[in-house]
């Protein structure tokens, strides 16, 4: 309550105090809009004409840039650039180039002026926003086919930064990203920081339940880590171990289960092929008996066996 009152107080103070005058800078739009720009930039060298095959290039959608200020809707008033003799030294307001001395936030401003809603509401404070990722770091708005919007092309864009995940997708067990049955955005909303790990749902488990709803429960006999966080046992991007487990059982299970008797016995390489050690080591190991590791609804399933 104390903190809440403090917050209310400072918000009131914020609006009670006057701001200083804005330092305005007058800029001028071109006289002919896109025709001014495309006079030079329509050649293949600039690779911009693909935009007319995208929704940005629509001349009928009143919200599309080309139904409004055309090129300058994103690049800003560009009359000075057009009139300049040395155009490289007088670039438009926003070039979106890698070496543009603008912060990612400044580069993203033209995009966010239209795309601040829907999946982008939670952009501010998200991991990507915090890491200074610009919209153009992933999106190619002049291309007829923006690779990141393509089911197969998307992961290649993501892998440019998330290189370790590409390695994960090549492991023996994992989700089918390399087959195109899933994409990164099947689980991640990369624009929304409200959810954990930029996921599509509030947290890891709710995201997993989107496809694995049978594990949602609640069950009569719950397995605590399964209710807490699926990633305590699984590596969702890929693993060396079946079911994308973090480690092989029995050691995976023995990290947490130490009751006297078979759960806490040490099995070494010498035990392979010996009885009764094999029954705890091989085939499905612990899960040969304890199959219901995600929870059991059988009144006799307290040991996650039924």
């Amino acid at each position: 309550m104390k903190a809440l009152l403090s917050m209310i107080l400072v918000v009131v103070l914020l609006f009670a105090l006057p701001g200083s005058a804005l330092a305005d800078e007058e800029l001028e739009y071109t006289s002919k809009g896109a025709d001014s720009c495309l006079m030079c930039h329509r050649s293949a060298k600039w690779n911009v004409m693909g935009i007319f095959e995208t929704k940005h290039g629509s001349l009928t959608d009143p919200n599309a840039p080309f139904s409004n200020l055309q090129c300058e809707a994103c690049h800003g008033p560009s009359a000075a650039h057009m009139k300049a003799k040395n155009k490289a030294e007088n670039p438009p307001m926003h070039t979106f180039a890698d070496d543009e001395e603008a912060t990612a936030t400044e580069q993203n401003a033209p995009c966010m002026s239209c795309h601040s809603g829907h999946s982008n509401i939670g952009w501010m404070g998200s991991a990507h926003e915090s890491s200074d990722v610009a919209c153009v770091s992933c999106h190619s708005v002049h291309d007829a086919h923006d690779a990141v919007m393509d089911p197969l092309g998307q992961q290649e864009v993501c892998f440019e930064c998330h290189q370790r995940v590409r390695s994960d997708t090549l492991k023996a067990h994992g989700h089918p990203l390399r087959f195109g049955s899933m994409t990164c955005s099947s689980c991640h909303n990369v624009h929304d920081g409200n959810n954990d790990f930029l996921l599509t749902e509030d947290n890891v488990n709710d995201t997993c339940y989107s496809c694995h709803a049978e594990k949602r429960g609640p069950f009569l006999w719950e397995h605590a880590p399964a209710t807490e966080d699926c990633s305590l046992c699984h590596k969702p991007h890929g693993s060396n171990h079946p079911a994308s487990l973090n480690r092989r059982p029995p050691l995976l299970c023995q990290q947490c289960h130490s009751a006297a008797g078979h759960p806490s016995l040490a099995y070494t390489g010498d035990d392979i092929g010996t009885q009764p050690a094999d029954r705890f080591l091989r085939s499905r190991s612990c899960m040969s008996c304890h199959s219901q590791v995600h929870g059991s609804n059988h009144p006799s399933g307290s040991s996650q066996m039924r």
Partner: protein
Amino acid sequence: MKRNRKYRLQLALAACLAIPAGTALAADTTADAPDTSNWVCKFCVVPYGWYGGADFGLVYVDDPTPKFADYRGLDDDGFTLDLGGEGGYRGENGHYVEYYAKNLALDSRILDAEAGKQGTYDFRGSYQEIPRYLGHGTMTPFEGVGSDMLTLPAGWAAGGPMEYAALESNRTIGAAGFTFKGLDKWRFDVDFERQEKDGTKSFGGGVFYVNAVLFPSPLNYSTDRFDASVEYTGKMLQLRAEYMGSEFDNGYSSVTWDNPLALGFGDDISRTALEPGNEFQQFSLVGAIRFTDWLKLTGKFSSGEGKQNDAFLPYSINPDFADRPLPRESLNGKLETSMYRLAGRLHVKISKGLDLTASYKASERDNKTPIDLYEPVMFEIDEQGPRSNRPYGYDRSRGDVELRWRASYQLRLNAGYVMEEIERSYQEVLKTDEDGYFGEVQWTPLAMLDMRLRYEDLSRDASPSEQQGNYGRAENPLMRKYNMADRDRQRLTAQLDVTPMDRVGVSFSVWSTDDSYDQSVIGLNDSEEKAISFDFNYLFDSGSSIYAFFTQETIEARMAAANGDGATPWNGFTEDEILSWGFGFSGQFKEKWTWGFDYVYSDSEGDIQVIDGGSGTPFPTLTTELENIRLYVDYDVNDHWGIGLELYNESYDTSDWLVDGVDPYTIDGIFTMGEESPDYDVNVFRVLARYRF
């Protein structure tokens, strides 16, 4: 401590709002609205009409195995039809159609379509199948595979005949949705999705005593999901209210099976419960408000409810326990979930810029499932002492404060504080607190060179460990489960990007996470993950490109356990080493030809060693080797027709001591399905005719 941390974060969030407006104004730029009467846009050439096309041809697969066919759907040896395409329609009045189709003649088919009027409304629909092929040499004597009643043939006895039993499933996902954006600043969405999963999966049923029977268990899942949302998007305020309802139904509530390892004490038949149906619904409110260019807030609130109330099975199928009363006929399980998050961002214009951000997130899983005393019957014959169920619940809070300073275009510095607190119910550790600091430097000394270094140092404290509830077997009192044990974590990330010219990109990355559980005598002691990566790409003048990548990763862990209180602990060590690399080329020549190749290699090794009393023979190394070579050529015959050829080979080789050499009778007391680790070397040839509108 908890209150102090929360208070600190809430004050930090408040601080985002606390600086008077006059101290922090970014320079703004304005321009008068232009006179657009001369903006004829004669160079704006929008290609109206139909575009895209369809692909149809044949794919030849040489001797596929289940592992190769897994997810791909290429399970038939020989020729299979290949159909797909991508394209749409663009109308002058804004109407449009888009479609994407892939593998239409295979079990991995995907079809997406969308139509509407841009900026006003759209309809969308999709259909997808995801096939799984998990049985590699699996066999079973059971009859009735695929149903919930598995019986042994009359007169069958151990050592009797068995038949190949494919472990296959198919997930189908059908979805439809509608969006209306015809009102200024408002958007309405409704979506419906139905997922079904049918087939079989491997299941292990425990039988007396520490014995088990593996059999193909039936899958007949369906999940319906409905989403609806209304959204307002203004210049200052964006707000969305959304509802989500999901219902899961299992066509089989249980599976009953003859016990091939029966001892004859009433355990001839056993029955296992399958996943019960459940439902979940959630209401969320998501919003963002931009007070000024330099002060923004965003947040989300969710409230949900989950239920599960399928009828219980009796304690046992054994008629000897038919009169054993259950405390209730069904669980009446109920979860109440909630989440709220608030994040604030303050941008202070000092030199090149200073940002203060703070976020706070709280969530709860309040498990209101009633607690009762049950009297389980193990293996259909063994009466256990009374047990009470433990409906686990969580109360989490997480927050961070970060100061970002863009000292210059060349130098960016970030530093911050993070905390997370989790309260658990019915678990050994009721509360964990974690907090720590992080710092990040991004240095761009030249436009062609960008370096980023981030370091995190976190420390987690756990409340005293005390076993809760009535267990059949008490855990070792020294056990500290790793998700709620004291932990020190150091994490390092470094990345170097070099772009000596526009057409060249080189990237080096290093990751390291080091977790130490110093207070855990029994349990996970430490784990370490390290990876290095290298990426390269080059774009030629002609539009052709080459690329290469390399990643090496090591995952190590050490744990300790002991057979009973006071016993000398033993140690377990695991190490996974993964190497993956690849390269490729794609190019175009003489305008009509496109060609390329890709090579991907991945090699994994998993070593496990358990040392008990000073010695321990390592387990054989787990290995997986994947190699994929792909060549493709496309030729445009004319403006409408083209031909595509693709040839690829994929080889996969695994060695897994858990299953290799284990036939159904190899392990005393475990009746397996004889699964083998998969190996294959498969060639695929694809020829396609492409028609473009």
